[in-house]
């Protein structure tokens, strides 16, 4: 929750981590972590196989689809350790997620509970309730309590937002026009991205000509860009807090016959591909979907009593630049696949992730 932490401190910490070196195997970033205590989990140790329960906020966007597929693949990697994997999807509804978790608790058929919270504050009470009964792991968004054994995430939204904003500032002329496209207000993951970028833009000599919520809708994004072009006549960069709309932004310029501005994105295949094909200036900070794997691995470690990074398991968060870009492109994969899924060596890749055969 943006409001409840010391923003500047958190910001600085994330920026520092971006240039720090993580612990753990460099070829398996989902197993890496940044300097945290390794918490003793022997209290939770029990003999396998384990019954894992997962309460998911939703599968409401492409990132979550990639992650969810990866998570199921990870579960399949542990046939002997995982006896059952029960899943509840809250469909983006806090109230339902609370009921889902309570229903898991009541069922008595979970040895560990993984939660991907819909809203941090809202899920806090029920997660606290769950912590009293069994080990809890959260990932992606977190909750406002330290009771979970660990909270898996990557470095964070500030670092994400700053990386893209820094690139924008470095690549537009002085006093250039920047259009900001955002998803929706009130989700901490997006708020932190913008908070960092806002700071960068304020300190640099660029002009934020607009700050619009487009709800992840490409049509709205494209129309908004056209509206801004017609209002100001000239845009030097478009900064987005969600990569799905980036391609629509590029198309808006293409359709109007205008040269491309700087367009930031994410590690989605279609953005990487358009960036390559259309030749605009871009950058793809990532929020790696491989954390969905980490959550399962953390759960198993805890049940086996192995130490895990705690209270937060902070994963690396690569930023894809033009130089590294082509390595992440695989035309076989679906356009909305997120490249940093950490799934390349998993069984069933790439078909399981929707690749055309």
């Amino acid at each position, binding site marked *: 929750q943006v409001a409840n932490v010391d923003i500047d401190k958190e910001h600085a910490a994330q920026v520092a981590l971006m240039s720090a070196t993580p612990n753990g195997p460099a070829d398996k970033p989902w197993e890496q972590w940044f300097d945290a205590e390794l918490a003793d989990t022997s209290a939770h140790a029990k003999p396998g196989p384990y019954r894992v329960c997962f309460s998911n906020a939703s*599968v*409401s*966007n*492409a990132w*979550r*689809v*990639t992650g*969810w*597929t990866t998570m199921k693949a990870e579960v399949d990697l542990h046939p002997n350790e995982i006896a059952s994997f029960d899943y509840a999807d809250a469909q983006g509804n806090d109230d339902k997620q609370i009921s889902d978790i309570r229903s898991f608790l009541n069922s008595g058929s979970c040895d560990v509970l993984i939660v991907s919270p819909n809203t941090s504050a809202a899920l806090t009470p029920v997660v606290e309730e769950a912590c009293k009964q069994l080990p809890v792991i959260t990932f992606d968004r977190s909750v406002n309590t330290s009771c979970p054994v660990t909270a898996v995430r990557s470095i964070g939204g500030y670092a994400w937002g700053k990386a893209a904003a820094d690139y924008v500032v470095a690549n537009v002329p002085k006093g250039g026009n920047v259009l900001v496209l955002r998803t929706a*207000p009130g989700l901490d993951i997006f708020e932190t991205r913008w908070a960092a970028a806002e700071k960068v833009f304020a300190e640099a000599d660029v002009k934020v000509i*607009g*700050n*619009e*919520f487009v*709800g*992840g*809708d*490409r*049509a709205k*994004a*494209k*129309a*908004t860009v*056209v*509206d*801004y*072009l*017609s*209002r100001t*006549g000239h845009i030097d960069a478009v900064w987005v807090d969600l990569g*799905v709309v980036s*391609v*629509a932004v590029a*198309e808006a310029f293409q*359709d*109007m016959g205008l040269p491309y501005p700087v367009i930031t994105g994410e590690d989605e295949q*279609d953005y990487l591909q358009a960036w390559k094909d259309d030749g605009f200036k871009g950058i793809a900070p990532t929020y790696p979907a491989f954390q969905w794997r980490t959550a399962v691995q953390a759960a198993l470690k805890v049940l086996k009593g192995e130490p895990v990074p705690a209270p937060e398991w902070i994963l690396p968060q690569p930023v894809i630049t033009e130089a590294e870009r082509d390595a992440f492109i695989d035309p076989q994969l*679906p*356009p*909305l*696949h997120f490249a940093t899924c950490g799934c390349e060596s998993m069984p069933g890749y790439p078909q399981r992730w*929707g*690749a*055309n055969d």
Partner: protein
Amino acid sequence: MKALIKYNPALPLLLILLALMIYLSPLYQTGPGLMSFLQRAAPLVILTCGATFVLISGGFDLSSGSLITLVVIAGAMITRGDPAFAGLALASVVGIGLCVGMINGLAVAFLKVPSIITTLGTLLAVKGIAMAWSGGAPSSSLPENMRSLGRGRIDDVPLTGSLPYSVIALIASLAATYWLLHRTNFGRMVFMLGDNPRAAALAGVPTQRVRIACFAVSSLCAVLAGLLLGGYSGVSVDVGGDYALQAVAAAVIGGVVLLGGRGSIAGAACGALTLYAIFTVLNLVGVSQPVRLAVQGAILVLAAAMTSRRE
């Protein structure tokens, strides 16, 4: 002016908004600029014209937004990005649209489930099918040839400079829906059905068939809107969203009376253009999101109040 308002309550408002747009933005002072406005407004206008059939017959169609989503997803899933399958995909989405319309119509006409409830049910089901089919994120994109309908244009056209295919589709569907509602026997039966279904049935009107046809028209318009939207901006699961309610609002602004019996295609089209012009002007003025939402809400209510004042 009075006669104009009586004829079409949205028209004066639309003219004012267009004037504002032209005043505020150099783009809208050019032919291609105005064409691009029409291009973007086309899906909403077409959808509203389709919704008008159901509204005049006395019902609602809340499912059209979901159907737009399904059309876009289906286009991508069937073609797998291969232009060779565009024809198949086109035929399929038309088929899907007809099915959804028929199911809505059959449930209302034969099971007697009120259309708000029926189409709420199909809204959920159709969206669910779209999501389940794509697994939450479509695994391919729409091929270029399918996208050209929403994105392409003819250049070097006299007068307007350019002519987007969307605008051609818009004009064609306006003509078709106008003909169907105002020029055919079917259209007259739709009005009577909305005014007094009992009387219509006793006068020999095949009320169930007419009702089903209204839902089918609405769904087919949603299919076309979906093709235009998908073409305009590419595949995504978020397209469609609140279009169904926007279409109802647009129709009401254009003088279509909820619960049936009165309205016109010209009014509905003006209502939809007005609504889209409101969005555009608010963007141009650069008011912040919260204020914009509030202004939209207020204008919606005022426009509806103006319409009801007329009676």
